[in-house]
């Protein structure tokens, strides 16, 4: 989302140092929330969500003019008192970490998330793998041996890369819990099953960069094959 700042917020931004020339990276929260969200502030007045749609918002700004975007932007509804700068050291550390992971862990540096990519049909051969700390994965229908609607997996190929390069699956797939992954559930989607594939976006303090596959409608009956211990 693209927002415009109220005057009080602009004054607050102006009281803080810049992160880089003409911009600040900040955190703030809504009054009803406890969690802070990150934003990039341009010229102390135009605020852009720093989430996985950030590149899309920047394209919008480039296509249109800054004053026009500012004029059409929604008012920013975050607490002025909660505004704080995200330190440059944290941003820099994150970037270097990502470059290392890209090089040594074979992560993908950029690309859209699965839901932002078009649907395709499975080829009936490729395997999907769902990683979980839990044996009783709720998204697998063990009775009909299928993946339930609205579930994510990765590809077997990306899972193998994760294992081969001794990568951390919690970071690669940007999982919210730091519990150890114990199980790998194998699914072979049928040719008529639709899927969307993309790159895991950074989340929960993790870099992502693995492959994710989203099955809006789940998979056909008898496509769940087996469960294996993680890494085997």
């Amino acid at each position, binding site marked *: 989302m693209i927002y415009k700042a109220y005057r009080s917020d602009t004054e607050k931004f102006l009281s803080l140092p810049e992160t880089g020339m003409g911009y600040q990276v900040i955190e703030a929260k809504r009054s009803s929330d*406890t*969690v802070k969200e990150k934003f990039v502030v341009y010229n102390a007045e135009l605020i852009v969500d720093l989430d996985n749609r950030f590149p899309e918002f920047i394209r919008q700004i480039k296509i249109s003019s800054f004053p026009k975007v500012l004029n059409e932007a929604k008012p920013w509804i975050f607490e002025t008192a909660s505004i704080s700068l995200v330190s440059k050291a944290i941003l820099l550390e994150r970037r270097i970490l990502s470059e290392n992971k890209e090089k040594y862990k074979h992560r993908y540096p950029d690309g859209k998330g699965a839901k932002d990519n078009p649907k395709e049909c499975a080829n009936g051969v490729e395997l999907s793998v769902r990683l979980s*700390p*839990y044996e*009783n994965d*709720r998204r697998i229908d063990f009775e009909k041996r299928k993946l339930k609607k609205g*579930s994510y*997996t990765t590809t077997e190929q990306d899972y193998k890369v994760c294992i081969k390069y001794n990568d951390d699956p919690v970071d690669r797939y940007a999982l919210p819990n730091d519990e150890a992954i114990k199980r790998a559930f194998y699914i072979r989607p049928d040719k008529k099953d639709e899927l969307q594939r993309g790159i895991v976006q950074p989340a929960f303090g993790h870099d992502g960069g693995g492959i994710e596959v989203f099955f809006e409608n789940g998979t056909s009956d008898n496509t769940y094959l087996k469960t294996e211990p993680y890494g085997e």
Partner: protein
Amino acid sequence: MKIKLLKKQIELLTSLPEQGMGYQIVDITLKNGRTLKEKVVLNSMYLQIDEKEKIDPNEIQTIKLHNK
């Protein structure tokens, strides 16, 4: 910490899409009107909360997927 949700809450979440592999992000309204936003539910059954929040699943009025 994480708490296990009630069977009907688990069934509801199992019928809703994930936001990533193995998790959903939800907004919760308690029966006393208090709201909790952007909470993580693992495996459609374990709600992750802060130690200080201390929620009883029986106090939950509604659970909805967080829609940013």
